[in-house]
């Protein structure tokens, strides 16, 4: 199992974190803090000396700025960047073949270590390509990722893609974590829900979440 980097979330997933050789999708509207789950997951991997690959549509500098906002420390150890600029490999959102080839190559070169892949490019890929193209691409990518001792975590924007596309994406991943705003009377609550997690019996129900200086606080939601 691969720790999520957040003890509260690890507890929710049965104390161990994400299952081995799994693909996790974090789904939520823009601006709610989905990326933080990727930052903490990467940070946890770096601490444990796992090989961490961060694939982003942004520049490495932009991600590092955002990482700081969540009090995650990337100063001692940094992931391997696959980014639009400032990374070891340049990421071009229009070049699926290159993305696939480079990811496979990097995984192969680091096959002797545990690997963590974090990516925020899924929404961009879905917007610039036909959904079935991305579906096929991900199916192939996941098969490659699962050949190694690796866990992949991807974020996707809710409200930017048609519901059927999001449903297809959820079906493709082994685990789905949903961060969302909910209405309770006049109040608006940010709640987290584990929609599914392969091989793990997650705690059911909704959880109030908030970001703190040390990570994420989760409290069972009681109406």
């Amino acid at each position, binding site marked *: 199992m691969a720790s999520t980097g957040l003890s509260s979330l690890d507890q929710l997933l049965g104390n161990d974190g994400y299952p081995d050789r799994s693909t996790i999708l974090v789904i939520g*509207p*823009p*601006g*709610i*803090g989905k990326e*933080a789950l990727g930052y903490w997951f990467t940070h946890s991997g770096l601490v444990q000396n796992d090989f961490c690959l961060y694939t982003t549509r942004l520049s490495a500098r932009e991600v590092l700025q955002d990482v700081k*906002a*969540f009090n995650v420390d990337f100063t001692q150890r940094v992931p391997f960047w696959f980014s639009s600029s400032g990374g070891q490999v340049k990421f071009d959102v229009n070049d699926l073949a290159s993305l696939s080839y480079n990811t496979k190559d990097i995984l192969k070169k680091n096959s002797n270590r545990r690997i963590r892949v974090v990516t925020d490019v899924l929404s961009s890929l879905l*917007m610039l390509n036909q959904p079935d193209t991305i579906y096929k691409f991900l199916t192939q990518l996941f098969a490659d990722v699962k050949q190694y001792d690796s866990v992949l975590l991807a974020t996707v*924007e*809710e*409200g*930017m893609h048609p519901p059927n596309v999001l449903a297809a994406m959820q079906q493709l991943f082994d685990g789905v974590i949903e961060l*969302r*705003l*909910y*209405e*309770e009377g*006049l*109040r*608006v*609550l*940010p*709640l987290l829900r584990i929609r599914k997690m392969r091989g793990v019996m997650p705690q*059911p*129900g*909704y959880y109030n979440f908030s*970001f703190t200086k040390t990570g994420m606080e989760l409290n069972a*939601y*009681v*109406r």
Partner: protein
Amino acid sequence: MSIDFVALVNVVAPVVTAAILLLGMYRALEMRRVFVNSVYRSRATWSGFLMLIILIQVINSFVSYPNSGILSVIGSLPVFALLLTIFAFSDRSVLVAMETDFFHRNTLGWLRVRWPATIVLVISFLVAIAIGSFNLPSLPAQPPLWEVLVENLAMIWFVVIAIVLAYAAVALIVGARRSADRNLRRSVLLIGLAILTLVLSIVLTIPFSGGLPYAIIYQGSTVIGIYLIYRSVMSLSPIGRIEKQIV
């Protein structure tokens, strides 16, 4: 017993408006608390601030001020604050929409227009304050041209403000259509429609000096405009309903 419909509309509409504004402000603060992304936080903050200024103006409209002199200027300050806030919010929203456009297009030449428009607004406010500070003598039978112009300055002022805000509203609507972010697209579009509705509420009521048509058009469009701002805040993020069986 006859009912004074005009008075009824003029009392009920501000109450409805105030209720929507209070709810909207509360929701905007809630949304602001939840968002971690600065773009979304600032949208929620701006919306809440705009609704606060509108609420102040709604309350202010029940206070009667003299037509000229320093009290008149004080009484019109909330109007100036409201118009400036609407413009500033529109400006920020158009820029955000341009930022989220894949091609970062300059919507209706907004980058060229925004500063001249700001200067026009500020000058028009300063002129309005200067004119409002003086007690104008009543016009003689054959007044000189400048006195006629001054007397009609209020109308010219309204037209200038309406043109600037209408342009901003159209820029918002066009910018929203180009934004790649669906949530922002909807939110910015609703803000554009709200501002357009509020501007139209002024323009459409110009032919009416009062009475029921004036009350219905003005108050009705104001309520619709305010509701659109409220919907704009709520559109910043999809909001779900908690499934009962799981709780």
